[in-house]
């Protein structure tokens, strides 16, 4: 068994190199150059207290907030400790019934016409912080009415919190729901 010695020693050496040195170097560079990103892109309030992350969505159920996408995380929606999707198949009757309920919940708030898919279909991570521009615009009349603001004022806030395509090309234009709702709160 001439090869047993290198097998054990190689395992040990690679553990030191790839499991010790490599993550340590990456952590060092990350913390020195990109501390905000490396620590979770946290949002802080006026007291410097962390109140969430730009990248992790939060649940909003009340009518005076913009609603995020549905979330299928375990225990409760937008549970960061249990990221994941619904894994519902497209032909699953239970899934279609759930979508129908979500569409109905939007209809009772006065929404007519086609519904943007992101507003009634759950995300992959269950933590998706964004909704589409269409999904945000659809909710503007409701928010304006609940908060006694003009629709133009709310639309202005939506515009401010719209992220365009990255480098003008990648991904889709989108709105960060948590940032938008916090901006709403600080206005009224």
């Amino acid at each position: 068994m001439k090869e047993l010695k290198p097998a054990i020693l190689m395992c040990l050496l690679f553990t030191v190199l790839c499991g010790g040195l490599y993550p340590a170097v990456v952590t060092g560079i990350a913390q020195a150059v990109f501390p905000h990103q490396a620590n979770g892109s946290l949002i802080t309030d006026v007291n410097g207290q962390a109140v969430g992350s730009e990248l992790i969505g939060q649940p909003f159920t009340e009518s005076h907030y913009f609603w995020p996408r549905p979330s299928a995380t375990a225990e409760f929606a937008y549970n960061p400790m249990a990221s994941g999707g619904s894994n519902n198949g497209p032909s699953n009757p239970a899934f279609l019934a759930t979508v129908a309920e979500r569409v109905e919940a939007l209809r009772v708030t006065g929404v007519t016409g086609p519904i943007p898919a992101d507003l009634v279909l759950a995300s992959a991570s269950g933590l998706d912080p964004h909704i589409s521009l269409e999904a945000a615009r659809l909710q503007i009349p409701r928010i304006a009415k609940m908060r006694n603001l003009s629709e133009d004022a709310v639309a202005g806030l939506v515009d401010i919190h719209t992220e365009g395509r990255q480098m003008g090309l990648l991904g889709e234009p989108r709105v960060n729901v948590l940032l938008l709702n916090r901006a709403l709160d600080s206005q009224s």
Partner: protein
Amino acid sequence: MTFPNDLLQFLGLLGALLLLAYPLGTFMARVYNGEPTFLSPILAPCESLFYRICGVDRNDEMGWQRYALAMLLFNLVLFLTLMGMLLAQPALPFNPQGLPGLSWPLALNTAISFITNTNWQNYSGESTLSYFTQVVGLTVHNFVSAASGMAIVIALIRGFVRRTTATIGNFWVDLTRSVLYILLPLSLIGAVFLVSQGAIQNFSDYKTVPLTQSFSYDKPKLDEQGAPMLDPSGKPLTESVTAKEVSIPMGPVASQEAIKELGTNGGGFFNANSAHPFENPTPFSNLMEVLFILLIPAALTRTFGVMVGNTWQGTTLLGVMLFLFVVAFGVLHWSELASTPMLHHLGVMGGNLEGKELRFGLIGTDMFTVATTGTSCGAVVAMHDSLTPLGGLVPLSLILLGEIVFGGVGSGLYTMLAFAIIAVFVSGLMIGRTPEYLGKKIEVREMWMSIVIILVAGIVVLILSGLAMITPSAVASMANPGAHGLTEVLYAFASMANNNGSAFAGLTGNTNFYNLLGGLAMLIGRYVPAVSVLAMAGGLAGKKYVPPSLGTLPTDKFPFAFWLTLVIFIVGALTFFPALALGPIVEHLSMMGVN
């Protein structure tokens, strides 16, 4: 209109891939040939130190049996250490959440999963694994399982290049060079880039933050043993709870994310894998992750061409891979854009966004899905279970074909070479000539090994899926009813036997049935082809060179690429069409029939 934009993103990806794979492939050929490179001044002393400590002589050439033995022994040591780590998790450091050890079937499945480059996840990272396990255990395995695959394909290439010798290289040297010169530098760059986009990299405790809007939900009541309590009618008891704050998990994510893509491993730090915003924060990070997945497999075709002394040999294989990639992407993207008639009927507009993240758009999501299943990666940005039926057929088919659309690092190219040998053989039969490939006669031994490499995973998938269908507890694991449930099981075994690791994740995989039989599938699917490849390499190295004659089929020209593509389609369709017809195809037809 997103069409011109989609096209631009897709062409941009392919352009960047070819542009980067070309120099990387040349560089890798120099590394494996032991020639000096621009990294040698820094890394050569480190490499020598490795050999000195381990007692390896870099000129000690191995025959195929010894090469295979070294590879298997190394993997056995890795398996035992990881298994120990998973079971002993609470006794080890860097465990701020105080997570317990894993049950032994789950630990066994996970350990096999990571040594075989599968990275199937029957666990949820954020609530199961400590930082120590993630970094010292899994990150290391991401590197070395990828490097093992690369070493094996390089040994096979040497088999084609060498003439009448008994040796195919030194496993320890190939392994060390793969990690030091290729995987580590690329991962370092990749990880820092991902952090710049928002991927996290820290060893902090999980962060508790207040919710901007608190809300109530029904929480299942648990008894003292932690089992759900039921009311007399058998329904779970719940109590109303108000959530005011949540915990956000932290950890050294970026360093693992980079090697997870570059080594086509695919085991996510979090349960949602690359869909999680901390693993894949922006459309740009997503595009780069797709590029990382495809980069080394694509570059290996160039390495192959350089090493065999005719780069068109590699380019021909690359062309076949590119063609299959474009076709697979086209079908998937078209199907997801079209969504389903049921959703249209409910008034939902736009593509199928169930189980997808908005920031990547359908285009970014679909590029990732094809890349991750055309290789042995298996990281996901979308929940494959929620794809449209024909959309889901694409990743499943790519896996069943043996992951050759760029392929896993190493394993993709050696499987593609096995297909090439079969293509050469079949064409040889047609014209009544002894088939040759790269100047080597293809004889009984090569044919046997090629057939084993290509069919072993398929045989395992079909037998185990069939076994699942007659086992009530395995059927109960399905999350979706009907044909879709069959697809979940088929996908699970396809993914494990081909060392992919992605899942139709609705299936409850953490049961003894799937943990143990899945572990067996992963072992057979990895090591039987790997040893067959080495056996073939040893045989080829011993043959003498046959110069091409008038009767030789040129394998570096377009007609061969076309022929090879046909052979791949025929072998794939003959093996899997019946199973696919009962799963995704029947689901699609019934979906269209209902409306």
